[in-house]
């Protein structure tokens, strides 16, 4: 009573904090993590463990000894980078390659720019793309390690991703694939690409908890559907169909968890829609006409660089103006 606080309004504050938002993203990733560990076993656990531990350690060391600022591990953002990096790698990736990925993700893509909130590019994707270019053999080795449970579909196709097969053989190569199976369990690929259902569960959680708005994710998926739809209708012998393109590769992982990263996506709704359309178009251009079978990572990184422009062009609708 003798010491009353006097401060300007408002006097109440939401319970949502940076920490709670980031923790929600980690929770939303749990289904995908569980599926990947079940099917890829100990090797996937090792990749996950090394990735998360390295990201945390590197952020701690950099804040403490290089930047000499307060410790930022409590905001959970390094955990997200660690999990996302792991989900973007094959389960067979050697631990030291994973560590190099973490160095690039946290050290170069995040902390060099000033840490959380300052980075221009999605840290986990920078890490992944760096590894893809530097260690192509490890990064495209889809040999299936021993999982905790076995599945005949996965085992039958191990060794190649659906997109890889389509790139080599054309649509005929993937004709035999059952989309219902793909929805629940993809066949070969990065850990995070395994199950569309697991990723969609995470998406639903993020929407319910109001962590993200749906428009970036939906505009990416919509663009991919329209783009591949046009090509498929024009020439089904040459181009894969829309559903295949949505369910395969890292599209859902990217659209739900990577493109919606607050820091590296536009602030406004329409900026977000344009951002999503750009990612969708670039992804499909790479898939149909590029050298790589998969293009989501490149597409997101390219569109990340356009975000400052989108923020300049698109603003919210102001009252009475």
């Amino acid at each position, binding site marked *: 009573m003798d010491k009353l606080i*006097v401060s300007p309004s*408002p006097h*109440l*504050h939401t319970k949502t904090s940076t920490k709670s938002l980031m923790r929600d993203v980690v929770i939303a990733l749990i289904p995908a993590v569980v599926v990947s560990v079940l099917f890829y076993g100990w090797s996937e656990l090792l990749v996950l463990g090394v990735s998360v531990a390295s990201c945390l350690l590197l952020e701690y060391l950099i804040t403490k000894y290089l930047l000499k600022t307060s410790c930022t591990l409590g905001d959970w953002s390094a955990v997200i980078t660690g999990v996302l990096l792991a989900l973007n790698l094959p389960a067979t990736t050697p631990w030291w390659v994973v560590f190099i990925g973490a160095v690039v993700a946290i050290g170069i893509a995040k902390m060099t720019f000033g840490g959380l909130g300052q980075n221009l590019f999605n840290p986990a994707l920078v890490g992944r793309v760096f590894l893809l270019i530097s260690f192509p053999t490890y990064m495209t080795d889809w040999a299936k390690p021993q999982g905790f449970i076995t599945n005949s579909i996965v085992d039958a196709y191990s060794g190649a991703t659906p997109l890889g097969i389509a790139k080599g053989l054309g649509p005929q190569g993937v004709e035999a694939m059952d989309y219902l199976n793909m929805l629940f369990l993809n066949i070969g690929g990065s850990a995070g690409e395994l199950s569309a259902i697991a990723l969609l569960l995470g998406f639903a959680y993020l929407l319910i908890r109001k962590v993200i708005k749906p428009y970036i994710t939906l505009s990416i998926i919509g663009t991919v559907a329209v783009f591949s739809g046009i090509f498929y209708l024009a020439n089904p012998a040459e181009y894969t169909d829309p559903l295949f393109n949505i369910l395969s590769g890292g599209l859902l992982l990217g659209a739900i968890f990577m493109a919606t990263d607050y820091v590296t996506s536009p602030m406004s709704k329409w900026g977000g829609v344009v951002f999503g359309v750009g990612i969708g178009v670039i992804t499909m251009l790479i898939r149909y006409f590029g050298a790589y079978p998969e293009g989501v990572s490149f597409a997101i990184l390219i569109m990340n660089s356009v975000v400052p422009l989108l923020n300049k062009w698109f603003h919210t609708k102001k009252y009475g103006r």
Partner: protein
Amino acid sequence: MMKTFSIGGIHPSDKKISKDCKIEVLPVPSKVFISVAQHLGAPATPVVKAGDQVKVGQVIAEPAGFISAYVHSSVSGTVKSVGPRKDIAGNNVVHIEIDVEGDEWVEGVDLSDTLVTEIPQDNKAILDKIKMCGVVGLGGATFPAHVKLCPPPGKKADCLILNGAECEPYLTSDYRIMLERSKEIVIGAAIMKQVLGGCPAVIGIEENKPEAIKAMKAALAELQAAAKGYEGISVMSLKKKYPQGGEKQLIDAVMKRQVKSMGLPIDVGAVVQNVATSLAVYEAVQKNKPLITNTLTVTGDCLPLEKQHNYLFRIGMPLSYIAEYAGGVPEEAAKIISGGPMMGKAIANLDATTVKGSSSLLYLTAEQTVRGVESACIRCGKCAEACPMGLEPFLLQKYARNSMMDELEENAIQDCIECGCCLYSCPANIPLLDIIRIAKGDVIKIIRGRAIKN
């Protein structure tokens, strides 16, 4: 679809702990201090001096400009002194100190409970009464009511909106008067509507107050059946969303019109008055009673239910007197707010006195109100999503920290209504509104300066 404003808004806690506490009349203390600055605009000029005898309802200060208001004595007794005293923020303001003796009212005030439903026909006389009784807007801004009710030449009122939204958490004074003084409020609305040329009147109430909606509808139906002059008034329930009671937001919700930047509501044909103002208009016009009383809520999570109150107070009562009467300031109170938790002012000085616009003594605990440590902006955009004016607080605070005045004006910082949605929503605890509020003042000074030069 229930109506609400179209841009932004937030959903803070829906707490209205004191909603079932009937309005109680506070006894008059032995001494009151009446401020001469209880309204927006120029402080009134005192017309009494130490030693003068005054009665309840007697004018003790006169308006000192077009935007100013009369101040009346709320008690009878002897003027002890006229001089500076600290207000709730700790600033010195001229107060008139009166030693209370008895309770003798000036002549002509109707103190009976009889409801006067017949509305006088002379609009000029009505406006004069509203002005002479010192009626000001009681929704927060305390803008002199008669000024708002006289649209400038060339402007016409298309709709009178009565603000019964009470969108701030905890406050229940408007809710209580809507239940207990429903008819008086409707009569006040009918009077104001007639003065404005007979435009329709809408009483906007948020859906979380169904009892108030019911009471107001019943009062309206009864008056429409019994007397003339009540047609064209309606009750509208609004979706619960803060800041529904903001003038610009309410106009958007009710009329689907938006006031231009730096414009006035009357530019789009709207006049907004609070339900408490409507009650004051009724008392002034029908009962000759000047604005010397209002309703105030004493509440907070740290108060037991029996210590929650809605009081009818007289202006000039020290807040400390009310707090003591209500059972004392709770131990856990870390901050006391006058007004709602979103836009109210933290009280620096509990010896300050009540003014016409006082609406609450709200006790907040440290846990509720102490802000978290500021961290880096994660560009989540939640502040822009929440802003009911469609501004981008993340951008404004960056420009403000770098004193980029042109960019601030381009991005409409002058339109900020200081509702606090941005700061409330920020997960990184960035003091968005603190920074924006200061910069907004500077930008408005620049805009005004330019207008004078041209």
